[in-house]
């Protein structure tokens, strides 16, 4: 067995299924399988697991298909079944299952497909801190083996989990090296909560969920100071519990991320006339079929294309009507900005705008306090006049900034460019050239570079453009005629 190196700082962990009817399966059955998979680990260690209905649980379980925002897209039926994150902050502990697999529950008669119990048991091993084992037959062996209904944890995995969290009191298996095992998380003190209807703008760590009917036990457990830092703000509630207020920002609790919609524009501009996207006091509206782009990025699963003071949005059904719109109608940027240089959505779903020597960080439509900040805060040189492009590269989920002939890799964990950078664009991103206009990773996980009125698809494996000759942007991205 191999221990990844991180373990939970306490033994009583919480988990929560965050997808309704995954793969068309009955939710109760799925929860039962997940529960049994966790129990396998609980029976062989000091760990306990409590199911809760909260996106603040230690282990969040999702069923996703294709690209799902963590940079590790699923591949449809077959091969990659699931993945999970080792203990830690942010996504730490979370388990993601490929919704497109044919999952079967243990009690079902149809056993063609993949056993959810078997895969969940394996993935939860990662959630607890175990890496892959080369021992065939071990649960943490990376290739799917299937499990019998009365499966018992193999010795290899048992040693692994007990080294991290100790053996259960009543069962001591073999000679596990002694150690200091994580303590029980203390029971939260009794707290009187006051129900209020006042709109609060701050996070409520002690909130309870008194009104939502659900099949889960009550969850009043706050996030403890002795645990990993809070899950990031972008996590959303179960869709079936979301109040039906689709056109208003979720203002009483900022941990829910509002979609970028025209009606969630910051309240401070509510005094403006209603939006009339196509009418502008200035005659500088770009022609979508005959223009270059300043910046392009996927934000909340939509493509945002920026040019001058304007932006277009492209959703699943194509280009939105009524655009281009002024950028400042959606994002609380200074009124006098006449362009943005680069935009990207951070892994924590915050949106970063680069304008000249400064950058702005938005949580949904709202500018975070303290911004703009100088590029030098990110470790970029003071001599840098602007960023040409920013992207999270699908190939390795790292963030890259481009400017002139150079690029930097950016460490999101420490909010600073990495050592050894900048590097020369031409030497590593073949065929792209200098002074790009924009770059982004599209929904297909591939990278696209833009310059002038054209673009290149980039071959991430060969590290060069997939086609030396540029393709015209307007027909491809804006649906314009080819001529």
């Amino acid at each position, binding site marked *: 067995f191999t221990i990844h190196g*991180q373990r939970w700082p306490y033994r009583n962990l919480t988990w929560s299924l965050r997808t309704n009817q995954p793969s068309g399966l009955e939710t109760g059955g799925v929860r039962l399988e997940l529960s049994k998979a966790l129990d396998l680990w609980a029976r062989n260690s000091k760990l306990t697991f409590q199911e809760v209905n909260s996106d603040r649980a230690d282990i969040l379980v999702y069923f996703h298909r294709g690209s799902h925002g963590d940079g590790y897209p699923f591949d449809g039926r077959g091969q*990659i079944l699931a993945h999970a994150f080792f203990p830690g902050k942010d996504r730490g502990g979370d388990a993601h299952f490929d919704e497109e697999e044919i999952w079967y529950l243990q009690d079902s008669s149809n056993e063609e497909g993949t056993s959810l119990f078997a895969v969940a048991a394996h993935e939860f091993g990662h959630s607890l801190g175990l890496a892959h084992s080369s021992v065939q037959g071990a649960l943490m062996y990376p290739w799917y083996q299937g499990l019998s209904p009365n499966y018992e944890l193999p010795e290899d995995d048992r040693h692994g989990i007990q080294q991290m969290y100790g053996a259960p009191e009543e069962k001591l298996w073999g000679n596990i090296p002694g150690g200091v095992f994580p303590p029980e998380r203390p029971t939260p003190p009794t707290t009187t909560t006051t129900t209020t209807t006042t709109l609060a703008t701050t996070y409520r760590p002690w909130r309870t969920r008194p009104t939502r009917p659900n099949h889960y036990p009550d969850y009043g457990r706050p996030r403890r100071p002795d645990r990993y830092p809070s899950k990031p703000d972008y996590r959303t509630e179960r869709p079936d519990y979301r109040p039906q207020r689709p056109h208003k920002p979720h203002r009483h609790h900022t941990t829910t991320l509002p979609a970028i919609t025209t009606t969630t524009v910051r309240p401070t501009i509510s005094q403006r006339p209603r939006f009339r996207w196509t009418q502008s006091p200035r005659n500088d509206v770009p022609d979508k079929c005959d223009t270059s782009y300043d910046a392009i990025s996927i934000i909340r699963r939509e493509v945002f294309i920026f040019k001058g003071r304007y932006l277009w949005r492209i959703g699943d059904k194509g280009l939105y009507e009524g655009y281009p719109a002024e950028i400042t109608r959606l994002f609380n940027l200074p009124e006098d900005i006449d362009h943005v240089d680069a935009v990207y959505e951070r892994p924590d779903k915050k949106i970063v705008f680069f304008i000249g020597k400064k950058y702005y960080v938005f949580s949904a439509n709202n500018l975070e306090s303290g911004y703009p900040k100088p590029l030098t805060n990110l470790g970029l040189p003071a001599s840098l006049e602007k960023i040409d492009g920013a992207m999270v590269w699908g190939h390795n989920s790292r963030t890259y900034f481009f400017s002139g002939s150079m690029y930097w890799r950016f460490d999101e964990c420490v909010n600073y460019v990495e050592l050894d950078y900048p590097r020369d664009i031409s030497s590593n991103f073949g065929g792209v050239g200098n002074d790009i206009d924009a770059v982004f990773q599209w929904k297909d996980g591939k990278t696209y570079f833009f310059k002038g009125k054209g673009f290149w698809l980039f071959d991430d*494996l060969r590290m060069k453009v997939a086609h030396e000759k540029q393709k015209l942007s307007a027909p491809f991205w804006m649906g314009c005629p080819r001529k």
Partner: protein
Amino acid sequence: ASPSSSMIYADDKVQSYLTKFGYLPESNPETGNLRTEDQLRDAIRNLQRFSGIPVTGEIDDATRKLMKARRCGLSDRQNPRYSRTRRKR
């Protein structure tokens, strides 16, 4: 590779698999597609060793079959991409 050894051909899918699961270094794509024959052969050997199939250093039938088998999406080698832990440079 020694002159006597036969060249190994690993297409994009194989290279992608080896990289994805930690047998080829992730930093390679960024420094160009200049993987050496030895690097590829070592990666294949390591994959074969880890999975418990015969270690030939070749992309043989058993290896091809293994690469098509259902599996977990995490890397087989210690790989920081699924961890938020900083590592000493």
